[in-house]
C-alpha cells in the first residue's frame, strides 16, 4: 500500500516537471512581445527595451524558467506584466468563482447520472430505457456553450425568469447569487450529466453480467438489492475514473461558459490575460490548471485503493 502511494507520488512529481517545461516552452514560442503590448502602439523602442529588461525577458530562457519555477514553489507567482500587481491573490479570487461553478455542475451531473444511468441499465432493451438513452445521446452531442446560449435565449431573454448573465458574490446578495448561478450550472452540468449517464449505464450493465451478481440473484436477492449490495462498488471504479477526466473537461468548459455568462472566473481571467499577452499570468494559470488535473488524477488513483481492495492485495 505504502509502496503504491510512493510510486504514484513519484509519477505525479515527474509529470509536473515535464508539464511545467512544456507550458513554459509554449509560452515562450507564442508570437508577440509582452513588453510592446503592455506599452501600447506608440511606445518608443527604448522604453520597450527597458521594460523587457525589467520583466527579465532579455535573460536566457533557462534562467527565466528557473526563476519562474522557483517562485512557483514558494507560491510567489510574480507580478502581472500589465498591471504590475501580484498575481496570486487575483487567481485565488477568481478560483473561488470557478469552483462554485465546477462543483455545482459536477454535483448536478452526478444527481442526473447515477439514478438515470441505473434505470437505463436496468431497463436496458425496454422502451423506457431506450427513450432515456436517446435523450442522453442528445445531451452528449450538445456543447456546453450552445446549451448556455439556448438557456439564456429561452429563460432569460424570452421568459425573463432568470438573469441572462452576471455574477454576485454569495455573501453580498445570496438570492441574486443563486439566480445568476442557475443557468451556467445547468449548461455545464446537464451536458456533463448526459455524458456521465452513459458511463454509469455501461458500468452497471457490465456488472450485471458478472458471476457474483448471478450468484447473489441465485441466493434470492432482487435485481436492485443485488446491485446495491454487490454491484455499485464494482461499477464505481470506471465511473470515478471518468468523473476525474470530466473534472478536467469541466474546468475547460468553464472557460467558455464563463464567457457566455460574463462570470469573472478563472476562465475569463485566462482569456483576458492571453489577449493582454500577460505571459507570466497565462503561464501561472495554465500551470495551476495542469496541477489541479494531475492532483485530481492522483487522488483518484488513491481512491481506487479504497474502493477496490483487490488492488491493495496485488502489491502486498
Amino acid at each position, binding site marked *: 500500500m505504502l509502496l503504491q502511494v510512493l510510486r504514484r507520488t513519484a509519477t505525479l512529481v515527474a509529470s509536473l516537471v515535464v508539464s511545467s517545461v512544456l507550458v513554459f516552452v509554449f509560452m515562450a514560442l507564442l508570437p508577440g512581445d509582452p513588453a510592446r503590448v503592455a506599452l501600447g502602439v506608440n511606445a518608443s523602442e527604448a522604453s520597450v527595451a527597458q521594460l523587457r529588461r525589467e520583466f527579465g525577458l532579455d535573460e536566457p530562457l533557462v534562467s527565466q524558467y528557473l526563476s519562474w519555477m522557483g517562485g512557483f514553489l514558494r507560491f510567489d507567482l510574480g507580478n502581472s506584466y500589465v*498591471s504590475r500587481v501580484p498575481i496570486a491573490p487575483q487567481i485565488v479570487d477568481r478560483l473561488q468563482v470557478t469552483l462554485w461553478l465546477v462543483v455545482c455542475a459536477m454535483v448536478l451531473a452526478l444527481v442526473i447520472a447515477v439514478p438515470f444511468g441505473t434505470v437505463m441499465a436496468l431497463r436496458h432493451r425496454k422502451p423506457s430505457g431506450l427513450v432515456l438513452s436517446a435523450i442522453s445521446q442528445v445531451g452528449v452531442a450538445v456543447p456546453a456553450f450552445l446549451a448556455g446560449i439556448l438557456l439564456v435565449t429561452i429563460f432569460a431573454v424570452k421568459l425573463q425568469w432568470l*438573469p441572462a448573465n452576471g455574477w454576485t458574490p454569495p455573501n453580498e446578495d445570496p438570492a441574486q447569487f*443563486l439566480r445568476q448561478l442557475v443557468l451556467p450550472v445547468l449548461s455545464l452540468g446537464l451536458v456533463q450529466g448526459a455524458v456521465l449517464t452513459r458511463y454509469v449505464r455501461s458500468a452497471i450493465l457490465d456488472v450485471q453480467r458478472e458471476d457474483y451478481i448471478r450468484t447473489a440473484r441465485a441466493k434470492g436477492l432482487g435485481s436492485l438489492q443485488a446491485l446495491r449490495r454487490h454491484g455499485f462498488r464494482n461499477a464505481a471504479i470506471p465511473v470515478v475514473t471518468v468523473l476525474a477526466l470530466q473534472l478536467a473537461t469541466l474546468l475547460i468548459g468553464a472557460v467558455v461558459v464563463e464567457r457566455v455568462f460574463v462570470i469573472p472566473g478563472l476562465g475569463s481571467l485566462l482569456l483576458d490575460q492571453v489577449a493582454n*499577452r500577460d505571459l507570466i499570468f497565462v503561464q501561472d494559470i495554465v500551470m495551476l490548471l495542469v496541477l489541479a488535473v494531475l492532483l485530481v488524477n492522483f487522488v483518484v488513483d488513491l481512491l481506487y485503493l479504497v474502493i477496490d481492495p483487490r488492488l491493495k492485495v496485488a502489491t502486498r
Partner: protein
Amino acid sequence: MKPTRIGTAASAALLLALTAACSAGSGSSSSGGTGGAGGSQGGGDTSLTVGLVAEPASLDFTTKDGAAIPQALLDNVYETLVTVDQDGKITPSLATSWTVSPDGKTYTFELVDNAKFTDGQAFTAKDAVYSINRVKKDWTISLKAAMDVVADAKALSDTKLQVTLSKPSNDWLYRMSTRIGAMMTEKAVADLATKPVGTGPFVFDQWRRGDSISLKANPGYWGKKPFFQQVTLKYFKDPTALNNALLTKTIDVIGTVQAPESLAQFQGNDAYEIVEGTTNGEVLLSFNNGKAPFNDLKVRQAARYAIDHKALMDTCWAGRGTLAGSMVPPTDPWYEDLTGLYPHDVNKAKSLLAQTSAATTPVRLRIPSLPYAVSCGQVVKSQLEQAGFKVTLDQLEFPAVWLSTVFTDADYDMSIVAHVEPRDLPAVFGDPKYYTRYDNKQLQADLKAADSGSPEQQVTLMKKAARELSEDAAGDVLFILPNLMVAEKGITGLPKNAITESFDLAGLARS
C-alpha cells in the same frame, strides 16, 4: 473481513456525502429557478449600470496605455483644466478662463477656487504644476510626448497658473483636455493603479476585476452635482451577452454597440432608445507607402477608385457611420467632405492598375482580428479583386501579432485598422517611421506650421493637409466609426458623439 467493512463504511460515507451535496445543489437550483421574475438589478432611481466592452487592465493611465481607463475615470474622477464639448470646441473645466501671449508661448490660466480632491485637500495651481511636471517626469505611455513642448509651469497664486511652451503649439491646449491633462494630487499618486483620487463629480468606489468598476457621487463636488449617486460600469467581452444584459434589465445603457446589426432587436421597441452619433475613429485601409507596390501613386489611386465606400459600409457596419474620404472626423474644426475626390470607378481603377507592377503580383491585406476589420476585410478584398488586384487576405491576432508584424515591422502591403485617437492625422501620416511609412516633406511642413500658427491658420493648414493626403492616396479612410448606444427609455443626457477619451457620466439623468 474487517478491512472490507471499513471500506464499505467509507464508500457509504462517500455516497452519503455526495447525496447530501447533490440535494443541496438541486435545492439551490430550484429555489433559484422559482425565485426570480425579472426585476432590475439597478435598485432605486439614482443608480445606473452602463455596459461597456473593454475592461481596463489597470487604473493607472500614466503607465498603462489603452482607451478603457480614461473612458472610466477621465471627467468622472479626474478633471482637466480644459475640456472638449460635443462639437469639438475647447471649453473651461478646472480653468475658468485663459489667455495666450501674442507670441503663442505663454498660457495663463485662471483656476476655480472651490475645487477639492476627494481626499479632502483643496485643488490649487500648485497641484496643476505638479501634475504637468509629473507627466514629463514619471509617465511612461507614449502620449506623454504631447507635454514635451512645456518648458516651464509655475503657480502665480493659488488660482493662477502660468505655462510657458518652448514653441507655440495649438495642439498642446487640445491635448490638455485628454488624459495627460488630468489633475492629480501628490498625496495620492502612490496608489494610482488601485485608488484614483481626483476632483471630479464621482469618487472611485470599487473595482471588481473581471466584472465592473463602480463610482459614487462626490458629495463635495465643486460644480453641478451629478444626478446618479451610484454608477456601475460593467464589462462584457461578448456583444451578445451585452445585448442580453440590457434585454434582461441587468444594465440600463449599452455604452458602445459592437455589432451594429444587433440594433435591429431594439429598433421600434418603445422600451429602448437608440443614440447615434460620431466618433474620432477612422477605419483606415492603410497602405505601406514605403515599398512596392504601394509606393507607386497609381497603385494607391487604383485602390481608392476600386473601393465602393457606401456599399462597403452597408455590408460590414450595417450602414452606420460617416463617409468622409479623409482622416478628419466631422467634429474636428477642419473637417471637409472629401468623398468626391475618389468616387467609385472600377474602370478607372483597372486602367491605372494596368500601368503598374501590381497588376500581376499579389498584394497582402493583413488585418487584425477585430470585429470591424474582419467584417470589412472580405468586402475590401472582393472589391479590389473586381478592379484587377490580386489579394491575399490574412488575419493576425490582435493586439500582439498584428502589432509586431504590421505595426512594428511594417511587414504588410495593406491593413485595416481604426485609428481612434483624437486628431491623429499628424501621428499617422506625419512621421515617416510610423507603420504607414508615409514620407511627404510638404505635408510635414504644413503640419508643423498648423501647430505653431494662429488658431485660424491651424484650420486652414489642417484642411490643406487633409486634402493633400487624400489626393495623394496615402491611405483610404473606409468610414468613420459611429457612436452607437442603446439605453432604457428615460435615460437622458447621453453624449451623442464620442469624441473625447472619457465617457462623461455626470450629465446623465433618469426622467
